[in-house]
């Protein structure tokens, strides 16, 4: 085996060993990670407030427990490789999701606005009800940004909890049973719920995931190439990213970041270095599409490119 072949092989094996980036950045074009500009905060300290006391039935049966677990969940996004930090601004009684107020609110809602005969943000604010439909969604993050730059100016998180009703016309409870124990000990069949057909959700799990959206990350394992790299789509796998969109009832695994999540926050907000905007992190293959991170393993492809360059230089040196 010639020297050039050995070098290429060695570098290539190294390239293959580098884990592909899977994290995906949110952009100004929702649902299109290859279009628009990446979203980012221009500060490394983002203050949030929590309202767990305005729900009809307290989340986790005790609102203070939900507040405490919420506060304990945000710091997961400050691993040692970043100086980005969510700062706990304390409890709030606000129920207003307002993209212009600069208050980053985590609010636990309960009951359907439609059951109260009203709709819209004013209704949700007045009654602290869920205004995003009766089916499917546990939590929702609304991120307000400057379209021309991608800079985030406000982020609010709404969580849809059980309202204490033992079942509506459908016989199913309204909202999701929120739990705070670790591991989750409360299930649908246990008191105080005692109902079947419900879904119980760990507050830490869902807050940590939604906090990833608040800082500017999108889902992993959800998009076609070049954003299709996926460490694990199985929520029960400890290597599955927090930004994986699948949630298991009672799952607590998303409280802890996976290596890909750490890579994501530290790539966007590297310790002691400038925030990565789209242009500085766009892989060569996706430059024309605007903002893009994750997907194809950029580092691996970079090393592969190096191997080609080394081989070419070796060939040149032999021929000269």
């Amino acid at each position, binding site marked *: 085996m010639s020297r050039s072949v050995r070098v*290429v*092989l060695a570098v*290539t*094996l190294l390239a*293959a060993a580098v884990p*592909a980036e899977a994290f995906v950045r*949110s952009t*100004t074009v*929702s*649902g299109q990670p290859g279009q628009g500009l990446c979203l980012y905060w221009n500060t490394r300290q983002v203050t949030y407030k929590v309202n767990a006391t305005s729900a009809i039935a307290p989340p986790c049966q005790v609102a203070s427990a939900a507040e405490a677990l919420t506060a304990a969940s945000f710091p997961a996004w400050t691993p040692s490789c970043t100086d980005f930090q969510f700062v706990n601004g304390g409890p709030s009684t606000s129920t207003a*999701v*307002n*993209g212009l*107020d600069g208050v980053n609110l985590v609010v636990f809602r309960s009951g359907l606005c439609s059951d109260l005969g*009203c*709709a*819209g*943000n*004013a209704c949700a604010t007045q009654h602290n009800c869920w205004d*995003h*439909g*009766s*089916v*499917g*969604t*546990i939590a*929702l*993050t*609304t*991120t*307000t*940004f*400057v*379209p*021309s730059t991608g800079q985030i100016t406000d982020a609010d998180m709404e969580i849809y909890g059980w309202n204490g009703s033992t079942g509506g016309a*459908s016989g199913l409870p309204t909202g999701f049973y929120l739990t705070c124990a670790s591991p989750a000990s409360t299930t649908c069949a246990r008191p105080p719920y005692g109902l079947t057909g419900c879904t119980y959700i760990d507050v830490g799990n869902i807050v940590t995931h939604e906090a990833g*959206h608040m800082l500017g990350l*999108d889902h992993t*394992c*959800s*998009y076609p190439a070049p954003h*299709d*790299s*996926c*460490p694990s*789509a*199985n929520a029960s796998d400890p290597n599955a990213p927090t930004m*994986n*969109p*699948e*949630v*298991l*009832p009672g799952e607590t695994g998303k409280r802890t970041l996976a290596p890909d999540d750490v890579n994501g926050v530290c790539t966007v907000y590297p310790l002691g270095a400038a925030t990565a905007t789209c242009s500085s992190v766009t892989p060569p293959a996706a430059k024309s599409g605007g903002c893009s991170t994750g997907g*194809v*393993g950029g580092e*691996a*492809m970079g090393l592969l490119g190096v*191997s*080609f360059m080394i*081989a070419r230089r070796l060939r040149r040196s032999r021929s000269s």
Partner: protein
Amino acid sequence: MRKLFALAAALATASPAVAAQAVATSVEDLARASDVVVRGRVISTTARWSEGRIYTFAEVQVSASLRGTAPARITAITPGGVVGDVGQRVDGAAVFTSGEEVVVFLGRSQGGTYRVNGLAQGKFAVEGKVARPDVSRLDFVANQVRAGERRAEAMSVDELETRVRSAR
């Protein structure tokens, strides 16, 4: 050497392409939760502020009413959009594009407007004979749907319409 490079490239770019396997809401549940379900074409989209939030108002020219009674033209509201120098992104919300054909699950709202039910699960884009929701931004709870029902996922338009019409 060329073969080696080809092998090297394949090794370096190999990555698992796995989709989330979670099950969320069934088409039938969406239909039961909706006042109207229509098929039609998006004529226009307009984003505007409402009480501190940005909503996008999509005008849909209705070609068929699959459930409930719908007017010939209906306004479907979804959170998020861009107004001037402010944008709002709501992960999980339906996104409408002018000109696309859609099947949408709607609940009555104020002023004769309708809101999309189930966020992105409540809007299917019709392409040829296939209808497909864009659920890439939704968090899915791995629950099972009822026997005989099917989750909101890509399927033939005929099957989607049949499931909507037969939901009780």
